[in-house]
């Protein structure tokens, strides 16, 4: 290569790096409030500029872009017609119903665990609803806000029954398959370190690759969130020959997340989740929502927009929550339809039951 050209390229790279780190930052930090008043038109074009008013961008576009997994039964999984279903997908539909009054105005973007955060940061999607663990670093330094917890999960291990292993404490020295770019990699490291055991991790980019590596014997165990273990066990060659170990080694509160810095959009997503939980709490279902609008209970009347206009404070219409429940039902209905005891996954409510039934699902009131 021509030496002068090399020098030029290197010069550009060094120059850009120098500019990036030594130029003074942009004057006053732009707060969400100023952005909201100036509106999207005042901002320069480009996907990240959409961070200002996500609601306006979504409305102008006409549909919600929702990041989901590449296929995890019960959470987000396409059927043979390409229709998506699952608890995470239903949440995307709920947000679309809140914004548009129409749950079909969603486009799903299947994302690997590795790519999901970059997609959200860059503005490629408006909302990430992809069995993602709420952790401090993701909430802070990655520049995201979590709306809350849609599913309380924990990490476990799957082994072959033929190995005779019945406890995670027997996994010393095992090779373990997992997916790269997940909290499972970190939890596993912490668990084995804490127990003074050694392990080898084989991290694939896609779930199905690491699962098939386990199925074909490249690894001794497979690890992911317990819900995922139950779901993925079903697609192994012989599900009956595998065992989910009893140990749960981590807390995995899964929830939807959005970019930090747009308080209005964060409120919409957060209160959509709360509306789903409140609806179950108050006994409002997909079937009785019309009837309930005439209810005497002030809590129900406020939720469904028959009294007050709580939706307007977040840029939506008064009946936003009624639209959500009409479209997807309440939290309990979504749970039972996607991962509950009557589905192939058959996961009992457990921690995900309402607070008054011994679970952790509890939503602040709408008032």
């Amino acid at each position, binding site marked *: 290569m021509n030496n002068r050209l090399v020098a030029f390229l290197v010069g550009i790279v060094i120059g850009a790096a120098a500019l990036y780190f030594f130029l003074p930052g942009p004057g006053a930090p732009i707060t969400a409030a100023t952005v909201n008043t100036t509106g999207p038109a005042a901002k320069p074009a480009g996907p990240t500029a959409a961070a200002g008013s996500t609601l306006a961008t979504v409305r102008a576009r006409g549909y919600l872009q929702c990041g989901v997994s590449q296929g995890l039964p019960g959470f987000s999984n396409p059927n043979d017609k390409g229709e998506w279903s699952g608890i995470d997908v239903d949440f995307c539909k709920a947000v679309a119903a809140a914004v548009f009054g129409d749950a079909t105005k969603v486009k799903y973007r299947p994302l690997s665990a590795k790519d999901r955060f*970059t997609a959200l940061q860059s503005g490629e999607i408006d909302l990430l609803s992809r069995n993602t663990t709420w952790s401090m670093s993701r909430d802070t330094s990655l*520049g995201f806000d979590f709306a809350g917890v849609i599913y309380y999960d924990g990490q476990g291990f799957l082994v072959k029954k033929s190995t005779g292993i019945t406890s995670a404490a027997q996994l010393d020295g095992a090779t373990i398959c997992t997916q790269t770019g997940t909290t499972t990699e970190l939890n596993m490291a912490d668990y084995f370190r804490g127990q003074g055991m050694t392990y080898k991790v084989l991290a694939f980019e896609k779930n199905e690759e690491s699962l098939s590596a386990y199925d074909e014997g490249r690894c001794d165990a497979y690890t992911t969130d317990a819900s995922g273990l139950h779901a993925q066990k079903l697609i192994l060659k012989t599900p009956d020959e595998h065992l989910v170990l009893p140990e749960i080694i981590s807390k995995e509160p899964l929830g939807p997340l959005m970019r930090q810095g747009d308080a209005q959009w964060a409120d919409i997503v957060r209160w959509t989740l709360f509306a789903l939980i409140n609806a179950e709490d108050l006994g409002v279902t997909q079937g009785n929502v019309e009837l309930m609008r005439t209810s005497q209970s002030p809590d129900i009347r406020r939720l469904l927009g028959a009294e007050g206009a709580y939706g307007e404070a977040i840029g939506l219409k008064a009946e936003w929550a009624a639209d959500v429940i009409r479209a997807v039902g309440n939290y309990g209905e979504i749970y039972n339809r996607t991962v509950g005891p009557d589905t192939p996954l058959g996961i009992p409510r457990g921690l995900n039951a309402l607070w008054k039934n011994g679970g952790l699902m509890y939503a602040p009131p709408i008032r």
Partner: protein
Amino acid sequence: MRAAKSKGFGSISWTNPRLRSLVYQLLAIGGTVAIISFFVLTARANLERQHIASGFAFLDHTAGFGVIQALIPYTEESSYGRVFLVGLFNTLLVAVIGTVFAVALGFVIGVARLSNNWLIAKLAAVYVEVFRNIPLLLQLFFWYFVILRPLPGPRESIKLLPDVFLSNRGIVMPAFGSTQATLAFVLVTLATIIGVIIMRRWARKRFLATGQTFPDGRLSLALLVALPLGAALIFGAPFSLTPPVMGPFNFVGGWHLLPEFVALTFGLTVYTASFIAEIVRSGIQSVSKGQTEAAYAIGLNPSQTLRFVIIPQALRVIVPPLTSQVLNLTKNSSLAVAIAYPDLVAVFAGTVLNQTGQAIEVIAITMAVYLVISLATSYAMNVYNARVAIVER
């Protein structure tokens, strides 16, 4: 750029070509700087608005995840900076081993394609056409998922040699350790190598001065085998072998070659060798037949003809495109991520990027690394090329 026959700057007029070109160049530089500043400032403003951390402080933070193959000491408590080095060395390992094997295999296949033996020539042609025309990613999938994955588990391993086993966990071999005789053995081997180099220099000098040949090739081979072997016989076994033993899951102890590593290195080697073979063939064919006939006419035998007449001239044609192939092999090693080999892209631009969310910094570092590796390789190959290039007098 125009030749500088400077007679002062000349008149300040648009018709003055020197002034005009200076203005254009300043505009071009200003435009470039403005565009880059715009991108940089926009990126910074957006990062700040979204509260995404930036800077390189994360390199000192604890990584907290495991890597299956590390050539340097690494634990989960090591820093992201350490993970970067682990990934870098894993990439370099594949690149170096792949390059050595690909060049060797490529030369053999390239020469074989020109063989007078019909069968050998056709086999080499089939090799080239098959491996050159199938996408590399598919080939990696083939070696990894089709060939290595269905192998039996560790307990049913195939015994290749005593204490060397092949299973779906890779190849396990005894670990080499040092004994009391190791130092003596290494010293004798080093002394032999130095002696051989001195002898070959002397032989070449004498050949150039007097024209007398000396059987230095055969002699150096004999010395290189005989002296270290003698040292081993006198001082005892130079290495101890610790055989692997079966643990609860897999072999414990010994050296392990991961199937991901084997598949990646093998796939890269086989693929790149097919291109190198064609480069070698074209290099040899570029030497006119008259050269061979002239060499025979002055009494050189076929192997001498190849060594002293054809190869030196062919190398002038071979080396520049060979550089590109070596660079390609290094860059293609980033396909490792598809088969879970922990190279730089997989662990650093993959896991670290995901854990820290600092896409700009991580990708910039990764790109800079490949740029530096490529430029360094280019430089080394250019130095070699200058040595074999035609010397004009």
